[in-house]
């Protein structure tokens, strides 16, 4: 499933001309028309409506604290569609040398009172109505009183942090809980300084800023929203993976067969024991990690991302590529885990340093 999403993702949100060509050839931009939108909505609706006939699914989807996430799925789908629809329309207009939809004569302005104020008023009233109805329909959850000696299974963080908790499966807490969130914030804040493209201000567009939109969408939809959805709906007792209609069996057994890279090298391939010296033991992992962060950036700069490197210059490019490599390390580690049962690339539990 995730493989399918990863494979199709860059065709739906093409980051460069090559993908863009295929996107056009497969007519994938038809997703962003009214028909496409209705299809997405119907698809989601049928999934949820049929899903609700299943007891296990109903139990999780209608849990009061999970209701916002069901709402989030619909809202994210809707707004992604809405923005991309306007973007595709504008792309066509730009291709035809027309002004974008948002363009109006600079002198043609409207008064804030009443044109904006009444829209705001309606939005506030609707929002208030939504909150009141929601609050009457669904009582806020209150479970048993806090008991530090009895931990529920699964214990989950608040839903907006479930993406981070999901990463804990693949990385140690110092990476998933500290390093990655820090990098995410730095990355978000760095966007305006890394994106030197001057086009696309003040209107929805895609073609003029393919790479920026594509990478942002990947981070936002796949690495953030999707992980939250997985963490909420598909992770049951002992943080085991459960299908959407599966009963959360507390006794489900998952064999823990994950092994470290050093075990692979010394025990399976060389058939010698692990060396005493920590550095010698983990040398393979160190080479891999250093190679990943030191060799790949210049390699990309020379080949695939040559134009980008020239445009951004040394410093901007380095920051950009390091952030991207960190972001990609999550799916890479996921696949290494699934395919080779790899636990850690570098494992130094003596110093809590595991990657």
């Amino acid at each position, binding site marked *: 499933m995730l493989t399918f999403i990863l494979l199709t993702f860059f065709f739906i949100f093409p980051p460069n001309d090559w993908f863009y060509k295929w996107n056009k050839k497969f007519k994938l931009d038809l997703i962003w028309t009214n028909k496409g939108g209705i299809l997405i909505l119907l698809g989601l609706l049928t999934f949820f409506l049929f899903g609700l006939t299943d007891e296990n699914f109903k139990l999780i989807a209608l849990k009061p604290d999970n209701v916002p996430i069901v709402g989030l799925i619909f809202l994210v789908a809707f707004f992604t569609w809405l923005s991309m629809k306007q973007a595709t329309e504008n792309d066509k207009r730009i291709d035809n040398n027309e002004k974008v939809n948002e363009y109006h004569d600079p002198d043609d302005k409207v008064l804030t009172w009443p044109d904006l104020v009444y*829209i705001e008023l309606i939005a506030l009233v609707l929002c208030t109505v939504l*909150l*009141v109805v929601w609050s009457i329909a669904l009582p806020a959850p209150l479970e048993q009183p806090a008991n530090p000696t009895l931990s529920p299974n699964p214990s989950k963080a608040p839903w907006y942090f479930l993406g981070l908790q999901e990463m804990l499966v693949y990385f140690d807490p110092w990476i998933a809980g500290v390093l990655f969130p820090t990098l995410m914030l730095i990355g978000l804040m760095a*966007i305006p300084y890394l994106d030197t493209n*001057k086009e696309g201000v003040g*209107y929805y567009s895609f073609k003029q800023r393919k790479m920026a939109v594509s990478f942002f969408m990947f981070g936002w939809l796949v690495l953030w929203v999707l992980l939250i959805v997985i963490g909420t709906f598909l992770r049951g007792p002992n943080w085991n993976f459960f299908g959407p209609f599966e009963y959360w069996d507390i006794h489900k057994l998952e064999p823990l067969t994950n092994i470290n890279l050093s075990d692979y090298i010394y025990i399976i391939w060389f058939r010698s024991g692990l060396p005493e010296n920590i550095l010698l033991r983990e040398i393979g992992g160190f080479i891999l990690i250093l190679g990943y962060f030191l060799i790949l950036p210049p390699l990309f700069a020379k080949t695939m991302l040559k134009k980008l490197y020239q445009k951004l210059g040394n410093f901007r490019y380095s920051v950009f590529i390091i952030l991207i490599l960190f972001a990609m390390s999550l799916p890479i580690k996921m696949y290494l885990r699934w395919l080779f049962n790899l636990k850690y690339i570098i494992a130094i539990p003596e110093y809590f*340093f595991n990657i």
Partner: protein
Amino acid sequence: MSNKQKEKKGGLLTWLGNSQVWKSIIRSGIPRERRGRMFSVLNSVFLHLHPVRMPRHAVKLKYTWCAGGLSFYIFCVLTITGILLMFYYRPTVEYAYTDIMDLGEQVPLGIMREIHRWAAHLMVITVWIHMFRVFMTGSYKPPREFNWMVGVILLVLTLLLSFTGYLLPWDQLAIWAITVGTNMARATPFLGHEGPGAALLSIGDINLVHAGSDIRFALLGGRFVGEAALLRFYVLHCIGFPFIIIIFMAIHFWRIRKDGGITTPV
């Protein structure tokens, strides 16, 4: 007909509108013509956050999604319901849970806690969607880079506000969600006692960073989620983070105007 007679016919509302008290509060009356409408925005402390005139596309829901404005509105809702909730709630291990129980059982038609909780969830979502809109319209590009950064800080503060509030009901959901969340702090490099590098910070045999001195301890005021943590989260939730977020919101709104208002295509 003289003027006096006309006013009488207008009824109570017109009489009220022409009274000295009303006119002293709202100087311009109901604005019906262009000049009056401009003044009604300029003269109001709340409305003058807006410019007097706007580009035609900028008021359209299709463009703005109203997500930023709604985030601010929901913040106001949260502040008001939060203040009401503070009347009933005592942040101690002894009373916290029973106070929340009381709130549900003793207060007739009480939905303040519900509104507060669901609005908190909703605010996280609207802030994300606002960020998404700003990205998709390229509104972070120069000269608005700094305001985007302020926005990211506001996003973090929103999450922190929601996170600190999660603990206050003091039920199983609360205490374990916070335990899971703060356990990650244990692994902060150098600063957490299970983080990489922490073992290096030592004088002779004495570790400087241990379970009783690391960053998680500072956050919780103890080795586990207990009385001190509840008080800390309460203070942060009700005073600390709102205080900070209001400052950043002021900067955010100010800079929107100073950076040229909402983005417009050239």
